[in-house]
């Protein structure tokens, strides 16, 4: 799967399926199983449908027909949320370890 057409054209994997969605959503929006299913099924079809190397199949799904602003702002300065501080990240990690050790 890819959402980065220019990078994929440069790298040339044997087969690729391109979906014009924001990074972090290459197989669909959260909690939309029907659309995720369509995307993944299309990708599985491409294994046989692609017969020449470096082919990129483009899927037709649109992230949001009413709002394409993400195409202007994704991967530009300030697009990522502020990460947790190292202390906060370590605390989250300690909590995760403890949670699964308890089970």
């Amino acid at each position: 799967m890819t959402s980065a057409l220019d990078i994929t054209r440069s790298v040339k994997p044997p087969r690729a399926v391109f979906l014009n969605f924001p990074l972090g959503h290459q197989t669909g929006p959260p909690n939309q199983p029907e659309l995720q299913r369509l995307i993944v099924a299309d990708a599985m079809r491409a294994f046989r449908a692609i017969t020449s190397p470096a082919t990129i199949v483009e899927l037709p799904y649109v992230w949001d027909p009413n709002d394409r602003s993400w195409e202007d702002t994704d991967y530009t300065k300030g697009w990522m949320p502020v990460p947790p501080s190292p202390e906060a990240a370590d605390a989250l990690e300690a909590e995760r370890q403890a949670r699964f050790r308890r089970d």
Partner: protein
Amino acid sequence: MPVAYIPRTRELYSDFTPYRWVHNESAPFTPLTKPVAECRVAMISSGGFMYRDQPRFHREDASYRRIPIHARPDELSVWHFGYPTRDAERDANCVFPLERMRELEAAGVIGQLVDPAFSFMGGIYSARKVRDELAPQIVDELKRAHADAFFLVPA
């Protein structure tokens, strides 16, 4: 219009020397000799997923995790610095569609979903490290699992 990530990366990391992207002149290609419905397909995500208390990833990390394909959503965690992970944390299927692949296996669209699935943290600056350290290990796993094909989802 598809986003042009190469110029955007240059702009976003303008304080650093420009990244040297991998450029290949051609692609390898092994034709599929049987229908996907008869294939063992492995699921791989570079989105930085961990199962239960598996160690957290870190920058320039060439390690990978084996994720049981029947992992429950609450047993998956994400660590990645290069993409907004909020939606992947809410629903791993955004970039690690284990549930969707299990459904496709049950429906006979794929022959078998290889168990385990694999995840690594794709924000690795060194392409050499990926090529020489991480990729060969994944290839070994896929050979051991007798995978016919793999589905690599980036994040």
